[in-house]
């Protein structure tokens, strides 16, 4: 059945209660403190586990991940130079693309061959790097579409409004709440196609939250969002963690990565090359090499390497220096 309410996941119920004094950030940091700083490190409580994932496009191996785990209740960043395979990895994990090899599981349920809609219903919802708003639906209709387990989504129930009206009201209230948080409430009745690029990013993220996921996977959520709003959005993402959700996001903005992530996974040329807390990862020699290696201007890379430019500087760990996004 298309609208199967049994699969709806209530993220808040599945997480452990936290003490009043400790925030979930501290819980996540503590849980990850003893995890080895190496690619494929085992986590104390992984929500997502992937093994031997390989995806080739002709001669190009876009993804080749031996092992990776994502800690429950933490914010994990997935970084890497352009073409590292981050988006392809997202597509594979969520069923939008099929790997040539490998197994992966969510909450210990294997996901091989599971179609994307079922992955989403299990509680693993992703957004797209190239935003996919539904242009000829209004903003609020976009939001409503995200809610799962809607009675009116069955053909015969849909014909009889009294059967779904009250549920629709609840959904709308929840949607309005999210729209307000994402500064989109003034656009409520407009076609989503009339939104600006940054507003579309916001709408897509808010819509994904309508699914009430347990794991949110955001592909460059901040690309094109203005700095003032980025700050408040960072707050929202941290808030998701406080509500008990797990966040996995791809981002090129190192300031943002450093600010909000509990753990960073670095990909280059399809493979995971480093893992660790943000500050440690950013000074890792392998990571710096990966970013420099991806630089289009090879001679400049060589010069940079030879002159031994300070690693934190290159990765924008000091606020005064440009981030790798500008360099790539």
């Amino acid at each position: 059945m298309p609208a199967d309410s049994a699969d709806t996941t209530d993220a808040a119920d599945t997480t452990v209660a936290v003490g009043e004094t400790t925030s979930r950030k501290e819980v996540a940091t503590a849980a990850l403190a003893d995890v080895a700083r190496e690619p494929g490190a085992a986590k104390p409580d992984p929500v997502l586990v992937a093994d031997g994932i390989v995806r080739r496009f002709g001669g190009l191996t876009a993804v080749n991940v031996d092992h990776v785990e994502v800690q429950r209740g933490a914010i994990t960043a997935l970084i890497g130079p352009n073409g590292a395979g981050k988006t392809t990895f997202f597509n594979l994990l969520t069923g939008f693309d099929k790997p040539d090899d490998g197994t992966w599981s969510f909450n210990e349920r294997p996901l091989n061959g599971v179609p994307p809609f079922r992955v989403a219903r299990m509680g693993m919802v992703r957004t797209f790097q190239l935003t996919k708003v539904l242009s000829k639906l209004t903003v609020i209709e976009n939001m409503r579409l995200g809610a799962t387990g809607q009675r009116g989504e069955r053909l015969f129930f849909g014909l009889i409004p009294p059967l779904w009206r009250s549920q629709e009201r609840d959904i709308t209230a929840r949607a309005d709440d999210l729209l307000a948080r994402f500064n989109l409430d003034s656009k409520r009745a407009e076609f989503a196609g009339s939104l600006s690029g940054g507003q579309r990013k916001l709408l897509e993220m808010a819509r994904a939250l309508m699914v009430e996921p347990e794991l949110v996977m955001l592909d460059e959520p901040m690309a094109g969002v203005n700095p003032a709003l980025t700050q408040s959005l960072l707050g929202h993402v941290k808030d998701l963690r406080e509500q008990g959700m797990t966040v996995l996001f791809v981002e090129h903005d190192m300031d943002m990565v450093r600010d909000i992530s509990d753990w960073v996974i670095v990909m280059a040329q399809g493979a995971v090359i480093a893992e660790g807390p943000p500050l440690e990862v950013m000074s890792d020699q392998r990571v710096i090499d990966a970013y420099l290696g991806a630089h289009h201007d090879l001679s400049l890379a060589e010069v940079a390497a030879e002159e031994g430019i300070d690693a934190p500087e290159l990765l924008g760990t000091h606020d005064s220096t440009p981030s790798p996004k500008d360099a790539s």
Partner: protein
Amino acid sequence: MDWGFIFTASVSYALGALTVAYCLAAIGLNLQFGYTGLLNFGQAAFLASAGYGMAVMVTTFELSFWVGITVGLLATLALALLLGLPTLRLRADYLAIVTIAAAEVVRLVVRSVKFKETLGGSDGLQQFANRFYELSPLSDGFGINFGPFLFSNQELWVMIVGWSLVALFSLITFLLARSPWGRILKGIREDEDAVRSLGKNVYWYKMQALMLGAMMAGFGGFIIGIFFNAVSPDIYATALTFAIYTILILGGAARVAGPILGAILFGFLFQFVNVTLSEAVNADYITFLDSSQTAQIRLVLVGAGLMLLMIYRPQGILGDRREIALDAR
């Protein structure tokens, strides 16, 4: 030139049995193409499967009219399922290619010599709708006048049933378009991957839209068959599908009243051009044509009119200009 005659003939046609049939098919297509974005170019095959399902049961196997209706509907649903299963997983244009080919396959199989015993070959099948006309509450006689308009009792009965079905299916479309179910269809039309990422079984919704739309079109197939009391393969050619698309786009896709307005207007213009031309030829106002050529000329004129419509009002008569503007962004 008798303008009164030209006008009444055109209006009669625009409200008549054939317009009803086209309208029903366009309502079905509206669900598939207008709301869901399915490029179904095989609508004629769904009309054919319904019409032939009915005709074969009644004429060839001498079963009751109601068995004929039931089998006709089941045949239409089965055909939709058969076409949808392999194609709805693929990109939109594959469905277009497969459906247009399948519609031709259906037509050629139906008119083949091999199945002439059951399906009647190129002559088709006749005399299966008598039971339908027996149900008519209208008294026998030549026909009934409404002011200047004269309809035969038989056609009037087809029109009553047909326009009732139009009302019913439009109501269903109206309710569904406003429901969460319809919201998913519109989402699929815009971007099916986005809908998938929100946990909706896109494949199954596309299948539902295809089958429901095919069933509605099937009723159009019944109406055509019943009105002529005959089915023949060449009625259900690809040109029929294009006429249905024209009607939908003329009226306005993804609008509940679009197919109704489109069908009436299309019927009126089609007949108006036809009758005007033949009147003008008969009255020697036009001398470079003879009366046998007017039928072709009207197709040219209707085509030219539609091109102008597409250029100056691409959203159709009832469409929303703002939606078209979004495509340009």
